[in-house]
């Protein structure tokens, strides 16, 4: 669904991404792994239109596309759940889910229809942990906030959802819930990219694993064809003696 070819990105003298290539397929969870500072979040922000790329190509369904802003990415059906979530604490769940894409009737906001759609989306993802969609996001737990951020991403008939460390701050039960949700997205036919440092999570839900090492893509393999130890080796040293 999405293909990235030869992407380079520097921040001043720091060359963060070097000729990065990545292929993401619909109906699959692709795990993006790599050590702290490997460039995972930067790659995602390039795809999401937050950072301009220095050079390289992004293709959607085989066609080259230009993404200059978050709106461009959204227009292509690409939604990103960022590491810091980027929710507005003072706004409620509905307001957050529709932020920047509010529904209107004439000049005023169409609150009932937004509320209805938000509830529908949460229900379609079998999210039952939030009692009211009119709760302020500040009052939610970490896991609930994560679910809201994910629901926000799938509200828009999105085709590719990228999640940057969605389980990093969560307890065991909430992690399981979020992973289950991630799997369900892929089973519904979406392309999913999951960034995680947790090998258990990666092996639990992913179909493929892509490993970044110091800004270079060092491997893209099927999850069933590798072991924990091999992936850890890729992350820490950029190579694995046992993978060609």
């Amino acid at each position: 669904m999405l293909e990235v070819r030869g992407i380079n990105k520097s921040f001043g003298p720091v060359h963060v991404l070097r000729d990065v290539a990545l292929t993401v397929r619909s109906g699959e969870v692709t795990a993006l792994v790599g050590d702290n500072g490997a460039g995972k979040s930067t790659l995602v922000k390039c795809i999401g239109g937050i950072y301009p790329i220095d050079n390289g190509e992004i293709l959607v369904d085989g066609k080259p596309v230009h993404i200059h802003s978050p709106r461009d990415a959204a227009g292509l059906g690409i939604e990103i759940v960022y590491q810091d979530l980027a929710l507005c604490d003072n706004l409620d769940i509905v307001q957050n889910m529709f932020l920047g894409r509010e529904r209107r009737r004439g000049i005023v906001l169409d609150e009932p229809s937004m509320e209805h759609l938000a509830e529908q989306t949460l229900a379609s993802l079998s999210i039952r942990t939030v009692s009211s969609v009119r709760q302020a996001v500040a009052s939610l737990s970490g896991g609930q906030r994560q679910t809201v951020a994910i629901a926000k991403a799938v509200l828009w008939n999105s085709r590719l959802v990228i999640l940057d460390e969605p389980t990093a701050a969560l307890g065991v039960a909430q992690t399981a819930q979020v992973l289950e949700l991630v799997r369900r997205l892929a089973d519904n036919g979406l392309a999913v990219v999951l960034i995680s440092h947790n090998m258990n999570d990666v092996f639990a839900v992913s179909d493929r694993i892509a490993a970044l090492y110091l800004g270079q893509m060092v491997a893209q393999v099927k999850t069933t064809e590798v072991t924990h130890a091999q992936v850890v080796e890729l992350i820490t040293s950029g190579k694995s003696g046992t993978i060609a």
Partner: protein
Amino acid sequence: MTRAKEILRTPTMVTFGALLLIIAAFSIMAPGLFNTPGNFLQLAQNVAILTVVSVGTTFVIITAGVDLSIPSGIVLGEVFAVHALEMVGGLDTQPGEVHIGYVFAALGGAILAGLSIGAINGIVVAYMKVPPLLATLGTLGAGLGVALILQNGVNTSTYALDPIGHGSWIAGVPNLIPIALIIVVAGYVLLHMAVFGRHTFAIGSNPEAARRVGINVERHLLKVYLIGGVTAGFAGFLSVAYFSTTSIGGHSTDNLQAVTAVALGGTSLFGGVGSIIGTLIGVWIPAVLKNGFVINGVQPYWQDVAVGLVLIVAVWLDQLRRRSRNRG
């Protein structure tokens, strides 16, 4: 949580309760003097101009900003209004004469002044990233200076705007009251019912989140400061209409009065929280206190003391709420 506690946690309800208490107390202390329709109409007329600028200030403060340049916006609005009148030859309109063209010329001048100072504030804050406190402190001084230069330091009087400042389109109700009410309703719709207001809250809550969903944060902030400037300029127009003269040495504490009203109304100076209705209540509390003290023969200066204390308590309550929420 019980209903009562829920209501107590809503800042607007707390200040509204305080206002009702104050009104009740003065009504008991001075029956037949304080609680008369005439007195309330007088009060509404007195607060009309402050209400207009406070609506603009509410938008600015919800973005976690502040606009200290309100006095210069008002005074420049007055000065541009009379200069516009001079250009169209309407300055010497006699009392009783009505020339709608002159009124619109003055209005145009005042709005232009407001747009100018709002645009400067917005560009400096949003694009040059100067902290709003200092940016608007700068335009406060500079704007007042320009006003004094344009006027050579003396005021200009005119009766051309009498139809606005002294008439009653609605029998018995001074015009300033419906005018302020229109601004309040417009502000309410824009802030609480339109996309614009939603984005204003979002930017005050988490500007990065707003940017991530594709909101042009800088352009939106510019528009918010334009609203602040235009309401100040319009207030200047109303001021000339009401006092029949510019007041280049006046309005010097209008910025602090507006911030006080907005904060009393439960709008958080940290951004992301606020309401137009709260601001309306916040405008009334100081005015009612002053009026009640005068009627009861208390030195009116006690109003300043009381408002100061109420303000501190209101902001302290807001802090408590934020802390308990962050812990939760």
